[in-house]
């Protein structure tokens, strides 16, 4: 390679490296702001803001969804598989809201530590399969569970 070209190549490599490093440091320092939601553990440990709106993400615990009144009020428990938070929401839930699925709720904590959601979004997971496959997977896990003592 001719010296002039080699020099240009080095300059470009340095420029890309520099821009990359600068961005990496910037992202690292803003890491918390880039999180779209708090986990249930954050809330239980008191890392989530009190008396302010924030987003809470987690998985809806199977069998925890209940409708206490006649209206649109729903109550369910969210988990990140270590800590749980109870959520109350009044309104229409998105199509993908299911027990055992991830959701992101926007709202605030009340004094009892219950999360009062103003908006509930479903978080889709990355799995795609035909209904028959999902059905047979479910049956398999059921028979496996049945075999366990």
């Amino acid at each position, binding site marked *: 390679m001719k010296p002039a070209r080699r020099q240009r190549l080095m300059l470009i490599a340095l420029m890309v490296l520099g821009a990359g490093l600068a961005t990496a440091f910037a992202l690292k320092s803003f890491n918390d702001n880039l*999180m779209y939601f708090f*986990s249930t553990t954050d809330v239980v440990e008191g890392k989530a803001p009190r008396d302010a709106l924030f987003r809470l993400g987690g998985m809806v615990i199977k069998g925890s969804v209940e409708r206490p009144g006649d209206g649109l009020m729903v109550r369910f428990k969210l988990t990140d598989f270590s800590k749980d938070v109870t959520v109350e929401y009044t309104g229409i839930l998105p199509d993908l809201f299911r027990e055992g699925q991830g959701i*992101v709720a926007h709202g605030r904590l009340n004094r009892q530590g219950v999360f009062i959601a103003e908006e509930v979004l479903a978080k889709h997971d*990355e799995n795609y399969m035909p*209904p028959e496959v999902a*059905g047979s997977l479910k049956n398999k896990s059921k028979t496996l569970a049945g075999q366990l003592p």
Partner: protein
Amino acid sequence: MFLIPDSVVRFFHRLASPPHFYAFTEQLMPWLAAAFLLVTLAGLYGGLYLAPPDYQQGDSYRIIYIHVPSAWMSLFIYVIMAIAGAIGLIWRIKLAEIVAISSAPVGAGFTFIALVTGSLWGKPMWGTWWVWDARLTSELILLFLYLGVIGLYGAIEDKRVASKAVAILALVGVVNIPIIHYSVEWWNTLHQGPTVTKMDKPSIHVTMLVPLLLMALSFKLYYLIAMLQRARTELLRRERNSQWVRTMVVENEQ
């Protein structure tokens, strides 16, 4: 360069000469078009008709056959654009500059399609058109980078100078590419994690995966066709005073 066979090096050297590039792409075009039609029809038939509905989303998931390949292309084309731009900067090869700028509108189009289809899917599935999470925001920045490249190129009269400026902008913007790809792993996002492009086994059933890969190939072929057509036009515009263009025009008129 000692790792690449001589014939390949010679092929690229010849391709970098404008008249040869122009003639070669003209011959290539019908083959590309035929392959594109074939793969697209197969992919659409497989994706919209043969593939089974999803266990959660029913038929709504079929938007992945447009959304996911577009999103992949938006990243892929950007990388091609930046590499071509760097080659143009270092070796001052005119054709690399042309490939870089010809890629930008195609990439911007795919980015726009990815954003719009994602939004249309997001409303019924997530419950919202748009959220400012890391994945969606970084993809929007990618669209602005593409538009910046197109705008900057148009704003500078001397196209060789414009190509240099555009290449530098594209190269600095490359930092956004890993951010987009890993955004769903580094931060909590509403957008789901990767289904296919990960080290693990794809989390999609094979009957749904095959049409998706066909559509990805189809979009790549489309990019090649659209980019080469743009490159040919741009080449003629830049070389309008050169001998080979004059000879070609005279020959065509006779």
